[in-house]
């Protein structure tokens, strides 16, 4: 999983490494945004700081020419709901006069098991679309992770992409720095889109994406601090962060809890197979103890869309008795169980778990298929 930096954070990281970025300032209220715009000098762009793609099209980025426009734009953007994300900060940024927009990026090519550097002269648009419609427009250079990126590789990617010779050296240098950052900071993706080219052949990073490998945050204390600030998403996702669950919210009404991503996904698929609609993906991971199980139930109960819950645990390192204890704990606090819970336990200590489980509080099923069918049935009953 990747931790996404906000644009303003990524730009700071890039600027610190020597990549040219526009002058900018973060603001969390309208007056602050206007003051920042005055300081930077018009025209400026006012950009919503939320972790969603396509901010521009959704109205989250406005170019303004004077104070009135700035005030209006800041007022509009601050507080808006952008694809489900609340905007509470904007980046006020020098508007760059550009003649051309490039794309440069580094990511891990999982098929090859090695990093890949990418350059395209078709920047400024959705690069995934370019990749699909005109794959040759993106030059790709795989990097040997033991050696790192050789300077000739940066040049090769840049020349292969057809970047003009007048800026080739600068773009190579940005790409080299970007790889260095990606490597030093345990990046999963590092992108500049667009890398703007000005009329006097300067390049400048007009947007910045930096996603960090969460598994490596332990050795990136500076970035881990940024994560606090970057944390966003809706209430449930924030709760999942807090509880440290792999959680994805979906549109249905059958809540799903299980151990192991593959098994949880399979449970989702079975809910669908039996005519239900999954409300979420929630993986408690390996070796979950009672408290963690209780937290998982708390999470799913907090989702108003959920009408029934299926608990599917196949014990390996996770022990059935611990799971049962957690379920009991979570449910015993209620006078009335808020949503019906179906439990299926298998694997390590499942018999002990069955004995511990308070069958007054939950419905027990022996097989995955039966458990899912029962939960779908419950959810349907509620909906009727």
């Amino acid at each position, binding site marked *: 999983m990747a931790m996404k930096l906000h644009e303003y954070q990524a730009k700071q990281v890039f600027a610190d490494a020597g990549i040219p970025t526009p002058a900018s300032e973060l603001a969390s209220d309208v007056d602050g945004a206007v003051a920042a715009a005055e300081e930077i000098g018009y025209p400026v762009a006012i950009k919503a700081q939320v972790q969603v793609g396509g901010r521009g099209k959704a109205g989250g980025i406005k170019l303004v020419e004077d104070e009135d426009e700035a005030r209006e734009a800041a007022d509009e953007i601050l507080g808006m709901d952008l694809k489900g994300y609340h905007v509470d900060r904007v980046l006020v940024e020098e508007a760059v006069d550009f003649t051309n927009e490039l794309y440069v990026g580094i990511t891990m090519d999982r098929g090859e*098991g090695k990093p890949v550097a990418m350059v395209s002269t078709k920047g400024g648009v959705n690069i*995934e679309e370019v990749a699909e419609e005109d794959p040759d427009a993106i030059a790709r250079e795989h990097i040997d992770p033991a050696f790192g990126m050789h300077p000739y590789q940066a040049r090769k990617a840049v020349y292969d992409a057809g970047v003009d010779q007048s800026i080739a050296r600068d773009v190579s240098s940005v790409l080299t720095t970007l790889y260095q950052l990606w490597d030093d900071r345990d990046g999963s993706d590092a992108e500049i889109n667009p890398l703007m080219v000005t009329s006097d052949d300067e390049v400048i990073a007009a947007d910045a994406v930096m996603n960090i490998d969460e598994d490596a945050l332990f050795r990136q204390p500076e970035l881990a601090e940024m994560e606090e600030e970057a944390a966003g998403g809706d209430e449930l996702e924030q709760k999942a962060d807090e509880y440290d669950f792999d959680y994805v919210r979906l549109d249905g009404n059958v809540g799903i809890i299980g151990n192991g991503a*593959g098994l949880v996904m399979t449970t989702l698929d079975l809910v669908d*197979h039996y005519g239900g609609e999954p409300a979420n993906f929630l993986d408690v991971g390996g070796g979950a103890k009672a408290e963690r199980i209780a937290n998982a139930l708390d999470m799913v109960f907090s989702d108003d869309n959920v009408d029934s819950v299926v608990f599917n645990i*196949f014990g390996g390192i996770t022990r059935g008795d611990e799971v049962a204890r957690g379920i009991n704990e979570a449910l015993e606090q209620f006078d009335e169980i808020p949503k019906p819970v179906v439990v299926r336990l298998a694997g390590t200590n499942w018999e002990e778990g069955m004995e511990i489980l308070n069958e007054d509080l939950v419905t027990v099923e022996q097989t995955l298929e039966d458990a899912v069918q029962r939960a779908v049935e419950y959810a349907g009953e509620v909906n009727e």
Partner: protein
Amino acid sequence: MSVLVDDDTRVVVQGITGGEGKFHAQQMMEYGTNVVAGAVPGKGGQEVEGVPVYDTVHEAVEEENADTSVIFVPPAFAGDAVFESLDADLDLAVAITEGIPTQDMARVNKRLSETDTRLIGPNCPGLITPGEAKLGILPGNIFAEGNVGLVSRSGTLTYQVVDSLTNRGIGQTTAIGIGGDPIIGTDFVDALELFEDDPDTDAIVMCGEIGGEDEEEAAAFIDDYVDTPVAGFIAGRTAPPGKRMGHAGAIVSGSGTGTAESKINALNDAGVPVGDTPEEVADHIEEFLA
């Protein structure tokens, strides 16, 4: 018979003095695995459950002729532990550890191309040859000796499928959990090749999931090289595009590849039936063996 592991396998457990390492070393030995040594820097000279501990894997190899390592080392140090095992001329290294930084694994991947040691994992449950030996954390009691080879990207899903097989009286030659990380050692193709070459494996189960293109590549490989009948399962059919679900591998990018549909189609095109449920996978295997 079996692939990769049997009762001759001589195992060194890296991280045997830690909580998980100790517990599972014990479990492995109870199952019958020949655990000959532990390796933990600074703990050389100690014993864990009667097993001698060495400071380095090399010593474990020299002193106890270990040929396989199972790695229970915390993620921050696990990349280094894998390097150590690759450098010790082992036949096999099994990395159980979850959460190894991806860049560490990219470097491991590079080294893998330079050595003869095979890596399974990381972030995997390990592998088991029922009745002989298990390497890793799989619950031994659900497995049974038999003639079905199983390879899976997911741990608990493996158990689910194995359970369905065993309940029907269908045992396994060897079951391999290859792990769900973006960068892994042994992949589907490698495992399929091993099972295809194993005379005792009469059918193969392959459990994949959304994300990446390993299943598509496996389908092409099956089409070209595998005569043993294969039944498939793909988890994540209902996962919405663009969402990551648990495994770093399990993301659907939104474009045409990596989706459940593309994987199922590829497998079907290679003549591999894909079950809608784990039980349906067992149905297919039952038919193959009938």
